[in-house]
Structure formats: structure tokens, C-alpha cells
């Protein structure tokens, strides 16, 4: 799958063409480590100088890069990449089998689980502000999130979606996206499990 979609170029403020694809290769992961990590580290150091940034640098999952290659072959796992100007701007991993709905009204029904979604650090406003630089692109995370919802609809899961939100993003997923907060998961460092019903997914896609 490879499609052209729009993201926003921060400099012009206008939509520009980008590519979203699911043929993600190991080289893409290596690229994120090599290119993104130093920028994230620099921004984290800058942020740590500022007062009251507790939520922004949480200590959570250990993401095992060595397992990624094996996961590329699994039907249950799907990776999405978003590229613009020949560079990877965002990456996402979704999973369709190991998790199911927890909301009582749809308990046990399948959903698309977002295991991982991240924009390149130069696209994240809070990080770039800390470094005193402008963002490059906007709405990258949004497009990946949208792809996950669309996948859920295409699979026949009717838009049902689940994820464990980091503490600093809870407001975003609950208030802006309209997900239902279900509860803190003791098996996932007490992160908040957020879920979409089919109606909520529709409303999100339509922009309500």
C-alpha cells in the first residue's frame, strides 16, 4: 500500500504532498534511530533545564529494536511509514490480534491496537520549541492515527481502536480525538487504556 496524502509544511502553512506506505523495511527503523535519536536527546536535555516538564519525559517501555525484523513478517503486525521530501517523517506500528476491546459495550471484539506511533522530532512542536527552532511538518501523527482508524474500518473492525496513552497525551486522545478512557493498565506501567467505538471513530474521521 502506498498513497499520497497531505501534511502541512510549517513554513508556508500550506498542505503539501506526502506518502504513506506499509512496506516498511528494517532500513527505515535504522534511519529513525540514526537520525531521530540525537535530536530527541538534544531536545530532552534542553527541556530538562526548564521547570515543571514532568510529563514530557516519562520513563516507560523498553522498545526492542532487534525483534523488529521478525515482526515485519507477521500478519498480525503492520508498520506504516510517512515520508516527505524523501525522508521518513513518521512511523507507526499497529497490531490486530493480541489486544481486543475492553469497553463493556464492545468487550472482546477485535480492534486495531496502536503499539507505537511517533513523528520525527523535527516535526514535534514542543521539542523544536525547546531547541529554539521551528517545526518542519505538521499533522504527521494525525495522518498515521487516521490510517490506523481507516485500517480498522477496512478490516471489518468498524473503526474500533485501542492504545495505551503516555501521561502527557491523555488529554489529546480523550478530548481532541474523542476516545473513551477505560482504565489504567497495571501490565503496562499503569498507562491509560483509551478506546474508540465505531461511532467515535466515524466522528473523528469526519472532523467533529
Amino acid at each position, binding site marked *: 500500500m502506498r498513497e499520497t496524502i497531505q501534511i502541512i509544511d510549517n513554513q508556508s502553512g500550506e498542505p503539501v504532498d506526502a506518502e504513506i506506505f506499509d512496506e516498511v523495511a528494517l532500513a527505515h527503523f535504522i534511519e529513525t534511530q540514526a537520525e531521530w535519536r540525537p535530536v530527541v536527546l538534544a531536545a530532552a536535555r534542553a527541556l530538562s533545564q526548564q521547570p515543571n516538564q514532568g510529563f514530557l519525559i516519562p520513563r516507560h517501555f523498553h522498545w526492542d529494536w532487534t525483534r523488529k525484523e521478525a515482526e515485519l*513478517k507477521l500478519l498480525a503486525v503492520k508498520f506504516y511509514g510517512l515520508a516527505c521530501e524523501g525522508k521518513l517523517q513518521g512511523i507507526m506500528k499497529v497490531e490486530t490480534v493480541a489486544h481486543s476491546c475492553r469497553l463493556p459495550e464492545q468487550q472482546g*471484539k477485535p480492534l486495531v491496537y496502536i503499539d507505537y506511533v511517533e513523528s520525527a522530532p523535527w516535526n514535534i512542536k514542543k521539542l523544536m520549541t525547546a531547541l529554539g527552532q521551528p517545526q518542519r511538518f505538521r499533522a504527521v501523527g494525525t495522518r498515521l492515527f487516521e490510517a490506523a482508524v481507516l485500517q480498522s474500518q*477496512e478490516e*471489518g473492525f468498524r473503526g474500533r481502536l485501542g492504545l495505551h496513552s503516555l501521561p502527557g497525551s491523555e488529554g489529546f486522545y480523550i478530548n481532541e480525538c474523542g476516545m473513551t478512557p477505560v482504565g489504567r493498565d497495571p501490565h503496562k506501567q499503569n498507562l491509560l487504556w483509551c478506546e474508540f467505538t465505531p461511532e467515535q471513530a466515524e466522528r473523528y474521521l469526519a472532523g467533529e
Partner: protein
Amino acid sequence: MNPKRTMTLNLTDQEMSVLDQLSVQKDLSKTALIRQALRLYQLVDARITRGEKLFFEDQDKQKAELMVL
């Protein structure tokens, strides 16, 4: 999306009945359900091949081992 190929599935009455029931329960088409089953099978098999073990844990927190061959 990816090009698809068609396959005919021969199931017993009982198997068909289970497929129907699970479809309703999971709010999935029969095709989507079979697809989920295949994904689950591959995922479990991959991890067991790697040497991991799959367990069920009952209400009393007693583990019983389930192996998929």
C-alpha cells in the same frame, strides 16, 4: 490494497456453526474472522518457535501451559 486470491473452504456443520457464532460475537464477517484466526496462529507459532511459551492463567492465578504444535 493487496491483491487477493479466492479459496473454497470445506467445513463440517459443527465448524460452520462455530464460525457463525464467533462472527456474530465478534461483529466480524466470516472472512475477517478466519483472517484473525490465521494471524493469531502465525503469531503464536512464531513465538513458540523462538522458544517462548504460551500460558493461560485462571482466576486463582494458577498457570496451565498451552502449547501450539
